[in-house]
């Protein structure tokens, strides 16, 4: 009876369960991970040890050439942002022309986004296959290159190849976001502008594009989050190779932690990634929420 009374007075008490899960699995875990990175947990050991070991793994990280390659590649992936924004905007404008079949078009270009990175990674690894892949076959058919290119088998081409594939996967989604933004401009405002004699490009420039700021910050956030967390797709397609040419920070973290059992170092890399998220994502979310 007393329990029932207490529950009646605090009806939201059941939320303590999700709250506890969240606090433990996210925030306690983050603190734990911070501690692991400065602990004396030995390299290549599954045996956890939680004494203080100093900041040696961070020092090691900044000396590690693989870390710098991974950081460079992680930042290189940010190129998907301008590419997807540009293509997405053009596709959204195309969808806004009142053409027949627009919704089918939208569904088809959005389809890549719904697929698992494991699937798209498998398919694109094959697309890029130098001898039996689609891309080289097309280059040969068009007579551009009889030899074909090496794509993901070459150190120089692997990152551009990954970026192309990711633009394919994400640009339809960005187009969807922009299209929703365009549709949110009230039709009567546009009609009024037309009555006043404004012609289409002018309507787009003065009325529609300014309304897309919110859509743009959503798209940028999502793409930036992906660039920072990029693991599945690259792991499936190249495993970070050839050599270390397509290592990103998440790939390096996985290799150090789960392949070499170098837990403290892995934790340090992950914390660097966390800082990167805070530094890069927080300002965008702060800026776009402030204006609401």
């Amino acid at each position, binding site marked *: 009876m007393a329990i029932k009374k207490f529950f009646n007075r605090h009806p939201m008490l059941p939320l303590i369960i999700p709250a506890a899960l969240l606090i433990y*699995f996210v925030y306690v875990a983050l603190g734990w991970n911070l501690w692991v990175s400065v602990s004396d947990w030995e390299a290549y050991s599954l045996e956890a040890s939680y004494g203080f070991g100093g900041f040696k793994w961070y020092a090691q990280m900044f000396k590690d050439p693989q870390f710098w390659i991974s950081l460079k590649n992680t930042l290189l992936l940010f190129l998907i942002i301008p590419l997807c924004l540009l293509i997405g905007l053009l596709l959204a404008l195309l969808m806004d022309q009142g053409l027949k079949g627009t919704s089918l078009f939208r569904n088809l270009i959005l389809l890549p986004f719904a697929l698992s990175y494991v699937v798209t990674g498998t398919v694109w690894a094959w697309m890029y296959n130098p001898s039996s892949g*689609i891309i080289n076959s097309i280059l040969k058919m068009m007579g551009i290159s009889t030899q074909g290119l090496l794509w993901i088998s070459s150190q120089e081409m692997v990152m551009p190849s990954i970026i192309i594939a990711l633009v394919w996967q994400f640009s339809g989604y960005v187009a969807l976001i922009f299209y929703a933004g365009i549709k949110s401009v009230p039709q009567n405002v546009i009609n009024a502008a037309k009555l006043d004699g404004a012609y289409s490009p002018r309507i787009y420039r003065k009325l529609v594009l300014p309304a897309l700021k919110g859509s743009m910050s959503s798209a940028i956030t999502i793409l930036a989050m992906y660039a920072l967390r990029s693991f599945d797709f690259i792991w499936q397609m190249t495993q970070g190779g050839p050599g270390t040419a397509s290592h990103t920070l998440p790939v390096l973290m996985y290799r150090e932690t789960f392949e070499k059992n170098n837990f403290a170092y892995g934790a340090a890399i992950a914390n660097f990634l966390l800082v990167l998220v805070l530094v890069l994502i927080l300002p965008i979310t702060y800026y776009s929420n402030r204006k609401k």
Partner: protein
Amino acid sequence: MSTAVNVKPVKEKVPVHLRVLRVVYYLIMICTVLLYLLPFWGTVTTSFKTAEEALTTNPLSFPEEISFDAYVDSFEELKESLITSVIITVGGALGSVALGSVCAYGLSKYRFKFDGLFFLLLSAAIYLPYQAILVPLLKTISNLGLYDTRRGLILIHIVYGMPMCTSMFRGFYSDIPDALIKQAMIDGNGPWQIYRKIVLPNTTIATVTVLVFQFTSVWNEMLFALTMGGFDCMPATIALNQMVGALSAEFNMQMAGSIWLTLPVLLLYMFLGKYLIRGYMAGAVTAS
């Protein structure tokens, strides 16, 4: 003649150069679709080829003789892990949607102690890079005896799916008028009775939307599957990953396996695509 002004949409006469422009637009549209669907076309044609044909013929060509061998063989390889994936996906999606819905209901309709803090912690967790909790998670899951079990992966997906689900539900629940809740309260209903009798029945579209969204994201997931499972409990993403590694030259098998893995998502996309797209939009709003 009625007195009401008949408002007609503003319609311009279509001059010739604009009509030409429309044709150009259609051409661009068709080319874009062809470009986007090119990988799918190659995937489907190759999956129906035999292993030799997949290696020797043009990847875009139609198979000389349609062979289902790759589908049969790859299904044989993947079937156990597909079952594992179904169990994990159903459990993980239902659990995170249930928790997300409850949290969103409480947060959007009631004031309670630490509600602001709870909301902040939930929202911030959406941006969590999972790498930053993987080592502690591995330790926790091992200590609980859940390493490499379906229950373990279900728990993980429930917990880490919850923030996104909450955020999506909050957007939908904010459309429920507060007056409706107040009226039900005056009628003597407690908050959770109102949730059961009014909120849930009136927001089935929202629930389906979040469920479909969450279903696809758990199904497609790889990082947790790889680090917290993978031997006894192997989700289909990992099984496909291993199959591709083992059969690196058998592209027909790889493509047929990819199609098996895509099939559930594709069916959702075809039959509940409206909801999935709505979910993507809600996800985009959340992320800004």
